[in-house]
């Protein structure tokens, strides 16, 4: 069985590294990944998993780094409904809600 994202999270925790976890909790229309898809945002950029790649994921990574700073969980709306053009390569047509949280002792 492939090691789950929770195994990776446990390893990071054991190494004393803080990590944020992003989860797709809701989708509308066409998006690159399904509800339940998860990603670990690593403080030094060694992210694990994907919530769909591209600009949307970049937004989620930024949110993850913010969460690592302030510890406050949040929902990120990723909008992939822009006009199709040469500038916007990752357009799928839908929107998704991604919950971003830190896994830490106090919670």
């Amino acid at each position: 069985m492939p090691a789950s994202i929770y195994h990776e999270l446990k390893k990071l925790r054991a190494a004393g590294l803080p990590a944020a976890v992003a989860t797709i909790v809701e989708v509308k229309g066409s998006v690159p990944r399904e509800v339940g898809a998860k990603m670990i945002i690593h403080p030094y950029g060694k992210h694990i998993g994907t919530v769909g790649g591209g600009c949307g994921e970049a937004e989620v990574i930024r949110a993850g780094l913010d969460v690592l700073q302030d510890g406050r969980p949040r929902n990120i709306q990723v909008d992939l409904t822009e006009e199709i053009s040469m500038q916007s390569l990752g357009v799928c047509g839908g929107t998704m809600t991604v919950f971003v949280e830190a896994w830490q002792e106090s919670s």
Partner: protein
Amino acid sequence: MSDRILDQLVDAIERRQTAALLTVTAADGDYAPCLGRRCLLWPDAEREPAGDLGLGALAHNVLADAREALEVREHRLLSYSRPEGTVAVFVEVQAQPPHLIIAGAGHIAAPLAAIAHTCDFQVTVLDDRPQYARPERFPHARVIAGPFREELRALRGQGPGLGENDYIVLVTRGHQHDIDCLLEVLDDPLAYIGMIGSRRRVHAVFELLEREQGIPAAKFDRVHAPIGLDIGARTPAEIAVCIMAEIINVQRGGPAESLSEQIRRARQARRERAANRP
């Protein structure tokens, strides 16, 4: 507290136990302090959930709704609006990974085992030829070298037996072995049974089994034979892709039509004609 939840979750995944992780993803009003809290819910209703969402009287409803999601193995975002405030809880179901049994360790089995592993299936490969049923050929699968029917029977006898989480592909070196394996599992509630063979051959095999073994014709309706989706596959690796595509189509309830659909329809039409005959 999170650590305890993480430990128990990892433990459940390793033991291939199903569990649901509940997380409060939005909360305001009186519920605001609950944001980010988690708990683990088990399929066994008697077992106490690990952790507490801190939702007070609402917890009862949340756990009942989460249990429903757990039962159908579906992630779900639950929302509640009460005079005290609003809450959203994400229910993430950690289901057992699906299990693919490949009977026959030949040229299709090798790429199929690799692709199935990549698609997060647990894979078991079975063959009576030890020179083929070798772990080096199948680095990501459990490999069993032994007689087909006996080994399949042993697999059926383990734990709860074969069921809706199990998929089987029959690609042995000879049709007699495929048929032996088919007869062994035909009454199990498997998610998928696929058997290789040309349309003509499959048709003849089903008729023979009906005639000589008295097996009701309808029992073969759920057998995917000829196996796979029609993508024009030719090489063993391409055939493995076409088999895996069919398995995903079954698993996800996709709209693609299987190669076996034509035979199934023809056999059903013939049965109906026979039933309507005076």
